[in-house]
């Protein structure tokens, strides 16, 4: 198992895509953090329904908008790290390297566990770095933009930070599961992007129509939607969000829902991996 982990470490490190995707994650997250910091006041005003524009008093960012900056990684890093996950098995099936890998680590459980651990740790590291960069942005750009008392020392903010890392890791694993199950990089990449970005929002809109009123709450449990609650600062419904996209699932419930979906995907893939031909 130790050998398989070393192998996975080399596999990750020696793929250009790993570095590209991780690097782009850090850059994009930093840019988003800057944008969220500069607009902290505006977004706070919008959320609280305060008057804005010429003549109205300047609004400073509240703790929720501070936490939003720290969770910038949930915007793009999740998907990019999901790609790193897709490639974990996807590349090996695409390029045939699964054969020499399985001859060097014939126990399939060991090979799979090593990939899982490797990808999850890498994703966690990228997530932590993203948060660190966001924090640097807050320190450098955030001066004077947040209300007094707003800062890092806040329990709920700490939870958002933890939730961000967990969300990034879960995305990497869902990518890994899709590549593992489908053994096809384009198909897995498409699903990774289309499910959270298009399919779930469409379903949520459909579920919110009056005819389906009794089902309206079910939309909250769609996996990516539920997972998104991991980074929610508050479960209080935000009036600036359209009804179809409001979610009052607690971070714990949302996180567990998403985790369960990821786990099911991984278990199915693992069972098939043991059965299917290499």
């Amino acid at each position, binding site marked *: 198992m130790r*050998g398989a982990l070393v192998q996975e470490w080399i596999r990750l490190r*020696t793929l250009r895509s790993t570095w590209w995707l991780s690097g782009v994650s850090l850059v994009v997250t930093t840019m988003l953090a800057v944008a969220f910091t500069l607009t902290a006041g505006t977004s706070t005003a919008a959320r609280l329904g305060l008057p804005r524009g010429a003549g109205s008093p300047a609004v400073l960012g509240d703790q929720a908008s501070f936490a939003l900056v720290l969770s910038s990684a949930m915007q793009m890093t999740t998907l990019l790290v999901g790609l790193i996950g897709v490639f974990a098995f996807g590349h090996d099936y695409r390029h045939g390297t699964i054969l020499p890998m399985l001859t060097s680590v014939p*126990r399939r459980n060991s090979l799979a566990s090593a990939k899982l651990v490797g990808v999850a740790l890498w994703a966690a590291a990228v997530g932590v770095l993203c948060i660190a960069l966001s924090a640097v942005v807050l320190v450098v750009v955030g001066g004077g933009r947040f209300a007094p008392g707003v800062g890092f020392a806040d329990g709920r903010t700490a939870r958002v930070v933890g939730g961000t890392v967990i969300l990034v890791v879960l995305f990497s694993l869902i990518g890994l599961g899709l590549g593992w199950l489908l053994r096809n990089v384009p198909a897995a990449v498409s699903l990774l992007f289309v499910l959270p970005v298009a399919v779930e929002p469409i379903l949520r809109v459909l579920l919110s129509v009056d005819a389906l009123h009794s089902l309206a709450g079910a939309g909250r449990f769609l996996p990516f939607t539920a997972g998104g609650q991991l980074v929610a600062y508050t479960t209080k419904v935000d009036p600036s969000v359209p009804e179809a996209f409001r979610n009052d699932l607690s971070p714990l419930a949302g996180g567990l829902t998403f985790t369960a979906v990821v786990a099911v995907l991984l278990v199915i893939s693992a069972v098939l991996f043991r059965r299917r031909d290499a």
Partner: protein
Amino acid sequence: MSTDNVLEALPSDPSQAVKPLRRGRGDAGASADKCLIKAVGLTKRFGKKLAVDDLTFEVHPGQVTGFLGPNGAGKSTAMRLMLGLDGGGGRTTFDGVPYRELRDPAREVGALLEAKAFHPTRSARNHLRMLAAPSRISDRRVDEVLELVGLASVAGKGPKSFSLGMSQRLGLAVALLGDPRVLILDEPANGLDPQGINWLRSFLQSFAESGRTVLVSSHQLAEMAQMADHLVVIGRGRLISDLPTDEFESRWSLKSVSVQSPQSEQLRRLLIDRGATVQSPHGDAFVVTGLDQAQIGDVAAGAGIVLHELATRVASLEEAFLEATADAQEHPIRTTSDLSAA
């Protein structure tokens, strides 16, 4: 790209590259390092198609065993079954141990299954290091095998630009990483130029001479006949013959005599009376099997028949091979034990 001059880097004497077998692995003395492969009842079905059909054979140490069969015969599938890569029937053991249960597989069995099994931009060296890691094979050994297969000068490059021959050699480098006592190579000569094939042949022969075990597949009999001491021949997934190479050759190389005579009708009748088979008559010429050159000459002389040509033709090995594999189902299995019983 400078892919062509790489060949010069092939070590001139491959036998130098083969290390002596390790001794004192603990248990069984001198034979401890020799590995006998037993494949029993290998079977693989793809839907309705039986790709490998109850295939049983052994691969002995100390010689090169050729695994021969036309394209689609089931060689690759059988090798994947042997290494536990595909699910199917049967059991293969390496000195009694199935592949999946080997403690340190890369140091026991080196395998080359597909030539281009690499990521196009991961350098050859990193590819090898990655595959060496589970068996704790050193970076020094990685550079050693790169040198050995003549890829040292392109070790830092992504194999995207590698020719088929270079890819095969990278695959061979993977197989050799653990300095294993068994090699299982699927069509390693594909894409090699004649020089490369020569090199491979002498490498495998000295590898086997050091007491190790080699199973190497090919669909080309001529190539195998030069490389292998023993041939396991399959067709349509079934065993056709399991014989030393020279016995396979003599068993299957059909001799015929081509004859030309102005009195060809008369001679043909006489020969048929003597039990010969006459084929492809064409003008004065025809081909005889069942009687040898001297016997035909005697018959002709006895009847006062003039001969214009009398020549023995030995069917090429390729013809023998085609004959042997043509109708796999209809031919009985021939093995060494059948022969010695006869």
